[in-house]
Every structure is written in structure tokens, then in C-alpha cells.
């Protein structure tokens, strides 16, 4: 497909591809096996200005927006979904500051994020608050000019490795959703520690940890937006980030399809390559069709965001759900094409399948997002605007 990329977008794509092929591919199995955070690759991405892509120009970024970010994420994920997620989650953590931060907060944090010298993480989920994001228990209590934060965030990507976290806490527990607020907390603040490091099925190179707050004192100036805006910050942040999860899945599926095609042409059974069998051909054809459809949807959603549209909840959710379901199916079928060796760790197919699963779960499960899409449809009586 021809997407008429601009010169800048082509540069982002080719550079992300080089990083993927030259720096990620040779070590992806090792990173997965050892559950090792990809610091060397993060450094390469920083040196190549990849973290600048999604940060506006006035904060040392390149101001390339959501679409270019998706292109970069896709290319990285083609080699390793885990490394790509580390990068995408950094964009996610910076979004609350980008969307609702004050100019002082932007000046203070965004240039370091753009340079890649500091990673970020987004802290919403708790043990009792997954899809039901309004059920969070973490509190932020006013204490003079500061806030004291108490509670535990769970499953936080880049947890422990990132320097900057945007977290959601209740400033007025009596008001539910409307009583939550967003804060910027920094690694090293007294009372802020890291808890359990999760051992995961896939995306094992990524860091997933608890953020533990025990009377963590955060200056009042670290409040993002104003008190009570937490739920809106969260929803908007996720709306913007969801095409990125779609891009992770498109890249992952692309890698799986390429591996399956190459293997099918090389593997011989009954005196011919297995790619000569129509049963295999049709599997590959279905994988390719669904992949291209998902890519088109992800790109369209990202471009909708870049167009300055006010509401893109539906588009983001559609891109995320469709692309992640597609990646689960494509990676499963890719493994099937590999046959027995696909199940073995010597080949990348099993890792891709393990990596795919989480994409259907995080940043809104595909079930809750179908609710979101349906709600949008019903709200405007299914009429296109």
C-alpha cells in the first residue's frame, strides 16, 4: 500500500527500521530469555532522536505527531514488540504533561523526554482498578503547598526504569471519578519506591512493576491541570495512545507474517516447499489481508488525531481493538505455518504469539473498548458526523 509519507515520515520509518534490524533483531531472543531491560537500545533510540518524534518542536522535539509515532512504533515492533512497547509507553507517560501540563511543567520535563535521557511511565492501574479505572484507591491529600500520596499502582510499564511518572490519585475520594487528579512524580522522591517486578508471559524485555507510595510528598506544582481533572486526563491520554497499541500490533504481525512466508518457502514436505500447498497459501493470504486492513485503520486513526479533531475516542478504540485481535490471530497462524519448530524457542514464532496476547488486554481490554465504541455509536444514534 502507498501511504504517501512525507520526507520526514520516511526518515522516521527508515531510521526506526535500521534500529530494529541492526540493534534489536540480534538480541531480541536474549532480551526475552533474560527478561532484561533494553537499555543499550534505548540509548541508540535516544541518540537517533527517536524520542523527539512525538514531542513538539518548542520543547526540543520534532513535532511529528501521532502518525509518525505510529510508524516508528510499528517498525520497532516488527523486530520486537517488547522493545517497541518500552518506547510507546514512554510516549504514553509523557501524554498527560503534553496534553494538560502547564508551560512550566512542559519546559521542565519535555526536553529531557525528547532527548531520551529520561524515560516516563503512566500509573493508573491498581489491583482493584483495571477496566474499572474509577475504582482507584490511591489518594493525594493536601498538606500545605504539597500533596501526600498513598497507595500502590500495579503493572506499570517502564516501572523502576523510568525517571518520570504521571499517576492518577484521588484528591477527593467522596466525588468518585470527579475527585481524581493527575500528578507528576519523580524517581527518588521520598516515600516513592518500587514494588513487585512482574514475570510475564510475553513482552518480557519490558519492565512491569508496582509503584508504591507511602506518604510520598509531591510539590503542589506537580499537579497536572487542576484537581478533579484526573479522569479526563486519563481518558484523553488513552484516546491518544490507543492507535500506538494498534501500531505495536501491526508491526508485530508484520514481523510474524514475514517470518512465516520465509519459513514456508524454505520448509519442504512431500517433496515440495510447504508454501506450494494451497492450505498454507490461504492462511498467508488471510494474514496479509487482515494485516493491511488493520494498518489502514491504525494510520487513519492516528491521522485523525493529527488533524486536530476534538473527539477521536471511537477511532482510537477501533484501531486498538481491530489491530490487536488481528495480531493475536496472525501470530497464532504464523506459528501454525512453522509447525512443530514454531513451538520451540529456537524460532521467533512462539515469542511473537506470547507478545501478542497482552495487546488485547492493556490500555483498555478489547471487551471494554467494544463498550466504548458502542456507547459512542448509540450516543449519536449511529449517524456519521
Amino acid at each position, binding site marked *: 500500500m502507498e501511504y504517501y509519507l512525507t*520526507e*520526514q515520515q520516511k*526518515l*522516521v520509518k527508515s*531510521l526506526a527500521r*535500521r*534500529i530494529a534490524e*541492526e*540493534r534489536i533483531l540480534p538480541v531480541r531472543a536474549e532480551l526475552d530469555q533474560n527478561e532484561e531491560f533494553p537499555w543499550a537500545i534505548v540509548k*541508540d533510540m535516544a*541518540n*537517533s*532522536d*527517536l524520542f*523527539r*518524534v512525538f514531542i513538539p518542536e518548542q520543547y526540543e522535539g*520534532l513535532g511529528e505527531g501521532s502518525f509518525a509515532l505510529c510508524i516508528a512504533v510499528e517498525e520497532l515492533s516488527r523486530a520486537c514488540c517488547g522493545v517497541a512497547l518500552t518506547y510507546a509507553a514512554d510516549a504514553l507517560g509523557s501524554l498527560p504533561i503534553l496534553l494538560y501540563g502547564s508551560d512550566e511543567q512542559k519546559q521542565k520535563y519535555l526536553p529531557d523526554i525528547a532527548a531520551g535521557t529520561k524515560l516516563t511511565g503512566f500509573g493508573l492501574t491498581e489491583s482493584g482498578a483495571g477496566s474499572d479505572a474509577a475504582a482507584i484507591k490511591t489518594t493525594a491529600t493536601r498538606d500545605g503547598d504539597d500533596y501526600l500520596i498513598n497507595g500502590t499502582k500495579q503493572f506499570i510499564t517502564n516501572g523502576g526504569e523510568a525517571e518520570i511518572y504521571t499517576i492518577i490519585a484521588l484528591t477527593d475520594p467522596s466525588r468518585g471519578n470527579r475527585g481524581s487528579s493527575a500528578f507528576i512524580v519523580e524517581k527518588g522522591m521520598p516515600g516513592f519506591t518500587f514494588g513487585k517486578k512482574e514475570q510475564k508471559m510475553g513482552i518480557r524485555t519490558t519492565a512491569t512493576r508496582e509503584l508504591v507510595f507511602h506518604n510520598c510528598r509531591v510539590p503542589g506544582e506537580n499537579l497536572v491541570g487542576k484537581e478533579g481533572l484526573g479522569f479526563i486526563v486519563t481518558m484523553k491520554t488513552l484516546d491518544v495512545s490507543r492507535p500506538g497499541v494498534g501500531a505495536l500490533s501491526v508491526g508485530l504481525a508484520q514481523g510474524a507474517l514475514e517470518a512465516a512466508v520465509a519459513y514456508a518457502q524454505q520448509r519442504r514436505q512431500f517433496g515440495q516447499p510447504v508454501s506450494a500447498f494451497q492450505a498454507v497459501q490461504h492462511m498467508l493470504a488471510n494474514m496479509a489481508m487482515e494485516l493491511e486492513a488493520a494498518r489502514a485503520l491504525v494510520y487513519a486513526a492516528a491521522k485523525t488525531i493529527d488533524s486536530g479533531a476534538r473527539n477521536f475516542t471511537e477511532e482510537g478504540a477501533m484501531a486498538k481493538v481491530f489491530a490487536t485481535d488481528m495480531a493475536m490471530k496472525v501470530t497464532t497462524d504464523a506459528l501454525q505455518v512453522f509447525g512443530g519448530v514454531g513451538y520451540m524457542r529456537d524460532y521467533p514464532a512462539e515469542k511473537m504469539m506470547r507478545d501478542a496476547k497482552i495487546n488485547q488486554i492493556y490500555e483498555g481490554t478489547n471487551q471494554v473498548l467494544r463498550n466504548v465504541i458502542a456507547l459512542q455509536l448509540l450516543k449519536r444514534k449511529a449517524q456519521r458526523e
Partner: protein
Amino acid sequence: MNIVVCIKQVPGTTEIKIDPETNTLVREGVPSIINPFDCYALEEAVRLRERCGGKVTVISMGPPQAEEALRETISLGADETILLSDRAFAGSDTWATAYVLSRAMARIADYDIIICGRQTLDGDTGQVGPGLSEMLGIPFVAYVNRVEEIRDGYIRVQRMVEEGYETIEMALPAVITVVKEINVPRLPSLRGSMKAKTAQIPVWSADDIGVEEDKAGIAGSPTRVVKVFFPKRERKSEMLQGSTEEQVDNLIRLLEGII
């Protein structure tokens, strides 16, 4: 610290074909790249600048299309680039090339260190670096694998020799050639690539740098290539038969025949 890096654009292949008629390299259909060893030189220069400040200037003598290679060095961290291009330079051997580069250095004038790759992928001689230092009358160390210390007028480097390392101190300005063990070159940066697209690359001609015509190009090149050819590979094999004892005896007999 003003650092100058000399690079060459070479055919991007290790399977070099030679035109038997003209004894020159076949360049058609082969994409051009920056000589890989020069990438290590550039990376080291950029790292030295990051350590001590200053500026990295990359120069290359070559045809107009060598501009592409120079452009790429900007995306890899070079501050300035200069192309030395003139019909008078065409056909230069390593001697004449070193002379032309030395004239360019005379015009640059303000430099602390010149870094070259140990050799090129196509010519393979490794002579231009040392030749350049001779013509400039400044010290030279080849096969550097580590810059241990560098400051105004002083450098200490480690270089690879056949059975180990040597540590050498010398005065600056100086010329060093580097081996691939010295670093891992970075990938281009997006900002650098955007800058590279629009950068103006000055071209210096023979007149610009005061090159005497009979000292450059074919006229200034004492090297004459009489013939270039691939050595014929001849392999004979003989299978030793019989019992183990017979095979050993036969092998000893054969080896004695060779020695």
C-alpha cells in the same frame, strides 16, 4: 579541539569486479557507501568532540557524487564537510591523494588532529594516512584502537600491533588511523538527517587549495598499475586409502615431500 576526518566513497561490496581491459574497478550497478573504516574514524571524532568540545570537519577527495557520502556524515554528527573535487585530481594514486589532502589541510590551517580509517575497502593500501602526515610534517600513529587521553597539544593512544598493544604519546597536531575495534559507530540521528538534506557542501578545486597540476591526478602519481588480476586458485586433493597405519605412513611421506 578541531578534528578533521578524511573519508572516501567506495563501492559497497566486498566482491569487487575489475574491468580486464582498463584495469579499473567496475562501479556500474554497485551502490556507493562511506568506506567502512572511515565510519570508525568519524565516530571517534564525534566522540572526541562530545568529550572536549570543538568541531568535526569531514573532507573527501572524489568526483561530484562523493557529496552524498559527505552529506551522510552530517547525519552521523559531522559539523562541516568539504568536497575536494577537480578534474585535475582524477586518477590520483595514494601519493597524489595525500598531496591534495595536505593542500586542503593547509587551507583549513586550524586543526588539532586528523583521523583516517586504517585503509579503504577498494584500494586496501593504508597509505594515505601516513602519506598525509609526512607531507604535513606532523606525527603519525597507525592502527589506533583507543584514544586514552587528549588535550591541547597532547594525545596518548593505544594501537594494535601483531602481538599486543603499544601505548604512544605524541604532540598534536597529528594524524592517526583507526581500526574497527575502537568503537561502535552510531546510527544517524533524525535531526542530523534533516540537517544533512539541506546542508550546503563547499567544493574546493585545485586552484582553491593551490594544488600544482603536475603533482596531482595521473601526472602526479608515480604508481603505475601494470595489471590487475585475481590469482588463480589451484587445489589438488588426494584421498589416502588403506588401513590407519598405511594412511599415516602415506601422510608422513607426503608431508616429507612438501618439507
